């Protein structure tokens, strides 16, 4: 399988102090959608901007489509489509004018009209950027990345701050790009985005990859694909060790307000739990069960929630 992106031993230190990326290793295959998932400050943006050739790594090797920054820059620029975390496009230019501008930078690419159709902005061709909604602005930003017919699309937190409908529209654009053979690399701190959109995910924390795999693999790695959360009248009167030992429970944590269990088969674990609670003379105040998510993977690995920071 050909590699779209490879980086190894990637380090980035700012002003000789803050180490944002500490020996990060990644391989992104051509044709997949790869997600960097992690909390704010994990080093996702630093990593993706190094891959985009916008930041110099302090050390480490980066290869994009077998080429390297510093020697093949112009060629690489033609092959990549980039959507920065936050770009304020010129407010008083129209959608069409901005796409013509970005199209002019590339030797080959798509007609602005075609790209507007693709991102559902045809009706807004003559509208100033300042009059667009947040979702429309973001679709325009992605359109600017797509107008040069890139082989790899880099998206840095593409749906942060968007409403659910705008997020789904954006996901559809990304999926279509991928279906046409493109490679996508994105960063996100939304676990649902990573789960629905990405073929593979690297969970990043404090400048390192702490888990890598398909969303399903990562969740399966918890040992149980279900999560059971319960609360007791009167707090945490039940020792964690006792809960962990119940049948079909893979791991258990006290989360400050409730118990959280990773469970293989809820229909075995829950009756056992109820039995134990009753034996101890305690009573359940609440109990919920759900499928495990990447959030649970992150919490299990770090003891923190993605959105804590």
């Amino acid at each position, binding site marked *: 399988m050909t590699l779209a992106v490879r980086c190894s031993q990637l380090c980035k230190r700012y002003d000789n102090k803050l180490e944002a990326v500490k020996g990060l290793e990644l391989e992104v295959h051509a044709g997949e959608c790869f997600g960097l998932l992690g909390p704010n400050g994990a080093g996702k943006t630093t990593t993706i901007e190094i891959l985009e050739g916008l930041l110099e790594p302090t050390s480490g090797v980066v290869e994009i489509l077998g080429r390297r920054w510093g020697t093949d820059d112009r060629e690489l620029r033609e092959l990549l489509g980039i959507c920065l975390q936050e*770009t*304020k*496009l*010129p407010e*008083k*230019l129209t959608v069409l004018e901005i796409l013509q*501008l970005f199209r*002019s930078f590339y*030797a080959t690419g798509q007609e602005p009209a075609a790209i507007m159709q693709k991102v559902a902005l045809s009706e807004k061709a003559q509208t100033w950027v300042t009059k667009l909604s947040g979702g429309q602005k973001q679709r325009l930003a992605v359109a600017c990345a797509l107008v*040069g017919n890139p082989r790899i699309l880099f998206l840095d937190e593409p749906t942060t701050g968007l409403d659910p409908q705008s997020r789904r529209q954006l996901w559809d654009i990304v999926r279509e790009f991928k279906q046409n053979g493109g490679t996508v690399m994105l960063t996100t701190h939304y676990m649902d985005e990573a789960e629905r959109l990405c073929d593979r995910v690297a969970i990043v924390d404090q400048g390192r990859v702490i888990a890598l795999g398909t969303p399903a693999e990562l969740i399966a790695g918890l040992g149980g694909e279900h999560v059971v959360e319960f609360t007791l009248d009167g707090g945490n009167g039940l020792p964690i060790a006792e809960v962990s030992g119940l049948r079909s429970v893979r791991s258990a944590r006290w989360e400050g307000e409730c118990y959280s269990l990773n469970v293989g088969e809820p229909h075995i674990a829950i009756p056992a739990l109820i039995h134990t609670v009753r034996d101890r003379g305690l009573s359940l105040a609440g109990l919920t069960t759900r499928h495990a998510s990447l959030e649970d993977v992150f919490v299990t690995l770090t003891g923190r929630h993605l959105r804590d920071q």
Partner: protein
Amino acid sequence: MRRYHPLRELVLCRFREFAREPEVVFWVFGFPLLLAIGLGIAFRNQPQEKIFVGVIEDPAAATTVERLQANPAIHVEIVSPEAASKALRMGRLSLVLALGHSVEYRYDPTRPDSLLARSQVDAALQKAAGRQDPIAVSEKQVTEPGARYIDFLIPGLLGMNLMGGGMWGIGFVIVDMRSKKLLKRIIATPMRKSDFMLAMFTSRMAFMLVEVVILLIFGWLAFGMIIRGSWASIVAVAFVGCMSFAGIGLLVSSRAQKIETVSGLMNLVMLPMYVLSGVFFSAERFPQTVQPLIQALPLTALNNALRAVILEGSYLSSQAGALAIMATWGIVGYLLAIRWFRWN
């Protein structure tokens, strides 16, 4: 030719953005005209002012008044001694005459109008009494176009405008783009950086042409200003000035991350030159010791060259020194800017 050429698209976008900001259009094109109108009216050439003189009550007063009235510029009245000193104090009279065995002039020597009145009145009285001037003089009054304040002012406003254009049109615009991460976004494309710089300078040049034409045509229509130099020389001087300030504007913008920073830097560059470089009054008025410094400023060089070409019809070659000063500022500014420039 490619359907979408980067240089053309970049320049077009600059034009569009400019034209869609009415207040920017006003400050660039309208404001200098308003300044010209305001200052042109305030400092228009006025008819000679009357000289107000008082003669203290005396039997001989009537004769003296009669003699003074021979000069139409002198307005003379007979006043009581008390009224005379009060009028002198309040500035209503410039000069009071007390007649006795000699004529006594009473006036404040620190008031220019009083000094003028003293010499005019004295001349009138002496002449009436039969004084013969040993030297024959004749007068020719010069108030023709070319020597008026408005003629001096308009090239200065043009110079000031070209400076402002370079600083705002390049310096401010680039920092604005940097603060919005737009610079970072466009270098993430295969765009050539040289295309971007060229587009900035090309659009500046186009605006420069409009600024020159508007101000000079306005001076001609509104104030009958006579343009003695050739348009080619005027545009050539304006071009060098415009590029000089574009280079300095680029330098000012090379690192600043915030609008506030670049605004401060721009003021630091522009304010001294507003005052020193002969926009509103001649730079020659400053002390001799600081003249080398003032003459080395790019705006002084630009204003001097513009005045020489527009008002005196000088050839471009005679302005080589001024052009060299401007070119040096522009080139040094540009080279330092390119060295320090930050795209993100």
